[in-house]
């Protein structure tokens, strides 16, 4: 079962600007401009690695999830992994 975990907090510099958030990833030197739910996902994935369903549950526990769609979350996770901000373990 694939589990996901965010890059270590020490490697991420996160700045909330307005509707968008900036994430500077020290390990890669790349700046990412991200929209919700990415910052929220990075937060819930900052601890123990979680599966897709555990991530969904964690988000729903802290936020009022308007569209709790597994496929949408999977797409977001894929994006995060491709960007190097989340690791699949």
């Amino acid at each position: 079962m694939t589990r996901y975990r965010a890059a270590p907090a020490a490697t991420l510099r996160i700045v909330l600007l307005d509707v968008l958030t900036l994430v500077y990833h020290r390990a890669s030197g790349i700046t990412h401009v991200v929209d919700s739910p990415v910052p929220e996902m990075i937060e819930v994935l900052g601890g123990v690695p979680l599966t897709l369903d555990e991530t969904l549950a964690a988000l729903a526990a802290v936020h009022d999830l308007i569209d709790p769609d597994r496929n949408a979350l999977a797409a977001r996770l894929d994006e995060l992994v491709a960007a190097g901000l989340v690791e699949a373990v």
Partner: protein
Amino acid sequence: MADENPQDSAPSAGEPRPSRRALMLGAASASAIVSIKPALAQTAGSVLNCEIPVPDPGRAGSYIDANGKVVPPGTKGAFPPAVRPFRGEDVKKAMNGGNLPGTSYDQSRAYTNYIRRLQRGTSGFTCFASLQMPRG
């Protein structure tokens, strides 16, 4: 430097934080991340591989006169559109005195004049601009 909690950085610091904020995951086909790519590296990498159509697709079918201006099809003394777009590498050679591939001397001159006149917004302009100096 510890990362900032996005909620702590919210502009409205004076209001009590809502315990549960609404969150949307978004459509599966949408994208939530844009990564900043170095503009110059892109330019340098694509210089020789980019393409310049003559004329731009918006004026497909039009002819090119000897000065590089786009004129109606069949205009006397003007040249028909290029069969396929030219690669940046070929345009560079043509600017240095060669001929564009598959063209006569006069045709090549007409096409390179067209390319020199390319304005921002016309297909192929970014490729041409990258052949000159990087604009930063």
